[in-house]
């Protein structure tokens, strides 16, 4: 192993190229994959400062704003990731790490949470962070006049108080063991307060980059904030974010060197793009998933046997292969991803089973079934195709699915939560409780299956306040089983985030919670 180590040192110090390192490592008996991983790890260990990162982002609109309350697409989310910090952060390996909060402590019932703030953190304006800023930032999303997309997640907060300059005390309406995860949400950026109100429009934050110039829907110029408190992060001197919505334009810009990285690679041509010598494809598999949501309060979906028949009548492998070209994993009819802490690994994978579908149909007292499935590409790319494939799969079980192609425009206001069965996209949530309370709890505004299960809702509240990990695991496993076997949701697959990077760009393990390294690419990546 000594030879390996000396190679690693040479490579890390830049005296050996990546190619030489790979060759030497393989000569010493490592496989290609291993050598490549090792190269990645060694490079990861030695970030370099400097340079100007140019990101091409497949979102962005002239109607975007700097206010985190209405962050709506990846463009502003990544910009927020560079300009702002939150109290906590989902680290690149998926663990919760401290950010502006140095530490936090719950009461034993998890109702009251004390967050101790990091000292000496400075805003871009020169103001020093204190507890009042945190209170104002949270109140920005609360109250009757809040137009924040984060309102539902801060609603469970009963009261926020300061305790001295560096401590904030949150009192919840009921116990919530996952609260430190919730405060990592991208909406809950800590903003400077002015007369008790958060300043949400200037773009000032505590993050590693200041927003020098922002043209909505076109570009953002970012500059490293010299007084950034975080060490070992924010390596680029400058960054430029371009909104390039057209995927072909984005791909061309990457291959011709106009940009250094892009999100949302066209998966139909990803294998061709990977052949380019100056481009690497990066892929992360997280919590993002596609669903077909059935309204359990509307016939025929109010009968669980009908739901189970449909859940057995879809060939997930075929959908994964055709719609995602393999860039994802099959779903098991619950919304918890494999990267989540309490994913139920031993729950058997549901498969395409015509006999079982027929069996459940018969149990429901039906010999055949005719249902409408609403879909549009606004739900997710390929939703209409997926629905048509589903129709073919289900036809073998005597189920006639009528695919209704809905307009993209206004899909979320006119189809979702309205039509009895429709295609939906979920970015997913970092914790089980968050995901379940957003879309599966009785009465939740986005409970798109209108599912109300007594045992499930009881467990949800119990597990939320439970601080014992083993007990929580049991409860969340049972809840995943309940959603899978009784819920109105059909989860055919989890999609990967597929990104294209110039070979000049280096990074550590990429965060899988969101695209572009959990929205933190600008602060986490560097030029090799």
């Amino acid at each position, binding site marked *: 192993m000594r030879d390996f180590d000396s190679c690693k040192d040479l490579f890390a110090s830049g005296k050996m190229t990546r190619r030489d390192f790979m060759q030497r490592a393989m000569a010493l008996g490592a496989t290609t994959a291993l050598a490549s991983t090792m190269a990645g790890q060694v490079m990861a260990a030695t970030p370099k400062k400097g340079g100007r990162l140019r990101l091409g982002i497949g979102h962005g*609109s*002239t*109607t*975007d*704003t*700097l206010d985190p309350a*209405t962050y*709506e697409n990846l463009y502003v989310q990544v910009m927020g990731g560079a300009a702002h910090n939150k109290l906590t952060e989902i680290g690149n390996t998926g663990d919760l790490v401290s950010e502006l909060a140095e530490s936090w402590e719950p009461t034993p019932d998890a109702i009251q949470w004390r967050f101790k703030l990091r000292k000496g953190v400075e805003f871009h304006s020169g103001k020093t962070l204190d507890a009042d800023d945190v209170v104002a930032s949270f109140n920005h999303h609360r109250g*009757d*006049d*809040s*137009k*924040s*997309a984060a*309102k*539902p997640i801060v609603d469970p907060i009963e009261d926020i108080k300061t305790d001295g300059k560096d401590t904030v005390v949150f009192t919840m309406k009921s116990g919530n063991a996952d609260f430190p995860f919730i405060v990592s949400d991208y909406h809950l950026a800590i903003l400077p307060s002015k007369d008790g109100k958060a300043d949400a*429009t200037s773009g000032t934050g505590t993050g590693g980059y200041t927003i020098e110039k922002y*043209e*909505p*829907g*076109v*570009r953002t110029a970012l500059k490293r904030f010299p007084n950034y408190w975080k060490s070992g992060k924010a390596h680029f001197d400058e960054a430029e974010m*371009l*909104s*390039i*919505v*057209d995927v*072909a*334009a984005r791909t*061309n*810009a990457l*291959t*011709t060197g*106009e940009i250094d990285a892009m999100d949302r690679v066209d998966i139909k041509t990803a294998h061709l793009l990977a052949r380019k010598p100056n481009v690497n494809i990066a892929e992360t598999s997280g919590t993002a998933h596609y669903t077909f949501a059935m309204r359990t309060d509307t016939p025929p979906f109010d009968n669980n046997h009908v739901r189970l028949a449909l859940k057995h009548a879809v060939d997930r492998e075929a959908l994964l292969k055709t719609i995602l070209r393999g860039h994802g994993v099959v779903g098991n009819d619950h919304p918890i991803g494999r990267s989540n802490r309490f994913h139920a690994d031993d729950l058997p994978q549901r498969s395409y089973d015509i006999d079982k579908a027929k069996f459940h149909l018969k149990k429901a007292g039906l010999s055949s079934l005719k249902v409408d499935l609403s879909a549009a590409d606004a739900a997710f790319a390929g939703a209409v195709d997926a629905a048509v494939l589903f129709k073919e799969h289900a036809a073998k079980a005597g189920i006639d699915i009528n695919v209704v192609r809905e307009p993209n*425009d*206004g899909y*979320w*206001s*006119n189809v*979702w939560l309205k039509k009895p069965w429709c295609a939906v*996209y979920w970015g997913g949530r970092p914790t089980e409780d968050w995901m379940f309370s957003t879309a599966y709890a009785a009465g939740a*505004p*986005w409970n798109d299956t209108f599912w109300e299960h007594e045992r499930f809702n009881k467990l949800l509240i119990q597990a939320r306040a439970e601080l014992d990990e083993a007990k929580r695991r049991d409860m969340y496993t049972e809840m995943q089983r309940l959603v899978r076997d009784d819920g109105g949701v059909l989860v055919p697959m989890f999609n990967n985030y597929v990104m294209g990077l110039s070979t000049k760009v280096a990074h550590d393990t990429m965060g899988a919670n969101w695209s572009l390294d959990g929205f933190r690419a600008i602060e986490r990546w560097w030029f090799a």
Partner: protein
Amino acid sequence: MDQILKMVAQRLALGVVTLFVVSLIIFSAVQLLPGDLAEAILGQSATPETVAAFRRELKLDLPAHERYFNWLFGIIQGDLGRSLANQREITELIGGRLLNTLFLAALAAAIAVPLSLTLGILAALYRNSFYDRAVNVFTLSSISFPEFFVAYILILVFAVNLGMFPSISNISGNLEFWERVYRTILPALTLTLVVVAHMMRMTRAAIINLLASPYIEMANLKGIKRGRVITHHALPNALSPIINVIVLNLAYLVVGVVIVEVVFVYPGLGQLMVDSVSKRDIPVVQACSLIFAATYVLLNLTADILSILSNPRLLHPR
């Protein structure tokens, strides 16, 4: 000359009426679209309370006619208002983009107009020759392909394979002129290919139409060279239809280029308008459509004036 001034005044007055009608139509059309700004912005994350708070703040809960007259009142005072979505001044949002759009249109016109006139005159001169047919086939095929396809082909050849020009037009405010031209050249070429056929064919047809007239025959009989017959005898009389077609195409270059903007990531007015329609940001949509309508009104007026000036019969009516 009085005649012309009178016509200009009449046309401008009519133009103002047109703009008013356009604003009314656009407002009602956006009103008919499902959803409003609050729902569009919040998208999947909308809850009834946040949508209601959004509407209260932006006064979207007022009845439609009240909002329209508020807007109209502002416009009459010269105030375009603010974008509902991000509260920016609309003049500030539009200013830079309008310049970008006009710059692209001007660059495309500077290439396309001389090119198509030359091609058209030469095609008339060498009618039915191999050259004539080749030019016709080429321009007609380039107009028949969708714009984005032409754009992708140009990107493939000039940006990806040859590496001569950038594949995206990364334009920011403080570029020097030639750098700006360099970065805008591919979208301008795309637009050129799209509009050349129309202008070239019109030039050719208008001239050939005149070549059968007795005065041309006379000129031929006098022994004047064919090139001179066309440029000095036929062309002046063919100018009127040619000018009309050129001006229509110029208007198209200003208002119809959103697809080219998307493919080249060119920050022009079209993209702004599409974004604003999809978010139901009515004041911005209104402002853009007024600019587009005004472009048509003014360019048509220009076409008429130029036609009159180029035609002595219209200039001195009996």
